[in-house]
């Protein structure tokens, strides 16, 4: 049984009609606290984000809760292939990020989405050897999501990313392609 079904969630592509649902978590300071972006204040920002960033993205999915009576997403998950280096160094890694509306925290939604996304991208991208994610040192909930999703904690990278203009220490996690995982 695939990871998504077990978790009771489904991942699907976004459409512009999801703007209002996206606005719910993208406007919530508690959700965007550990993101680079500031909280949105108008649903048009969410609509523009879907059109400009989500639809052209290599891998961006809406997280829906199975069995609920509508198809509205409660969060999103995205996987970014690493930018290819110049010369003869080839890309073999990607990074995953996720956001869930506060009303759905504490139910395993993010964990289920990360598991499902990892399974999907390792299957879809034969070049992928490493899927990584960083979580702020002050975000233990996100660190737990990654551990429960089978990621290994590798270490703390000091002043690694700029969060709303301030450098933050981040915990690095990764999952690597197993010998038994089919390409």
């Amino acid at each position, binding site marked *: 049984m695939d990871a998504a079904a077990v978790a009771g969630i489904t991942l699907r592509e976004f459409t512009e009609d999801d703007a209002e649902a996206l606005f719910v978590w993208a406007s919530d300071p508690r959700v965007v606290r550990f993101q680079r972006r500031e909280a949105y204040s108008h649903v048009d920002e969410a609509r523009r984000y879907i059109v400009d960033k989500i639809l052209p993205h290599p891998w961006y999915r809406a997280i829906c809760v199975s069995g609920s009576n509508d198809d509205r997403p409660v969060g999103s998950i995205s996987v970014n292939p690493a930018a290819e*280096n*110049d*010369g*003869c*160094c*080839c*890309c*073999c*890694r990607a990074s995953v990020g996720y956001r869930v509306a506060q009303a759905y925290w504490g139910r395993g939604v993010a964990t289920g989405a990360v598991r499902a996304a990892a399974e999907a991208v390792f299957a879809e991208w034969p070049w992928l*050897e*490493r899927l*990584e994610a960083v979580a702020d040192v002050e975000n233990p909930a996100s660190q737990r999501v990654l551990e429960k999703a089978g990621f*290994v904690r*590798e*270490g*703390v*990278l*000091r*002043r*690694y*990313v*700029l969060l709303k203009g301030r*450098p933050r220490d981040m915990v*690095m996690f*990764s999952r*690597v*392609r197993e010998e038994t995982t089919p390409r």
Partner: protein
Amino acid sequence: MEKSQEPQPAAAAASGGVEVTLRRFDLADVDAMMAWASDPEAAAPCRWEPYESTDPLLVYLRDTVLPHPWFRAICLATADHPVGAVSVTPTADACRAELGYVLARAHWGKGVATAAVRRVVATVFGEVEGLERVEALVDVRNAASQRVLEKAGFRREAVLRKYCVLKGDVKDMIIYSFLSTDPLVS
């Protein structure tokens, strides 16, 4: 990159008395660059293949090195021709940049790379706006390069598994960092 060495007598201990200066490159440096750019052993841990002639190296100098935000020639105090190169390359985050270095094999094992990296962390934070972290990625099997960073005061943070493919091999890399607030090693 420095190779593993047999234990050295104390008088020749790495980096104790080595003085280097860092300066900007000039197109006229192309011939001196060939000393390491054409050397397969120097090129082995790097992303590029050894150069077979100066023409493509001149293109690299002109198109990549000269416009680069922070690329320096490593010169010994006794001479002005470069014996290696060091660079600090911006990343997606303005607070961090990646260190890279290469040294002509004739100067391995003498503390030159360590001295150069020490000069980098002593100067680069004052020259690059917003920079707070210099990081370096080293193959887990490159013990000599790990020692260079450790002797220069970098902190080892993690092993990043299957981090990149370099010349056909998937590599585990150790990530090191030096912060603007870290103590300089004298």
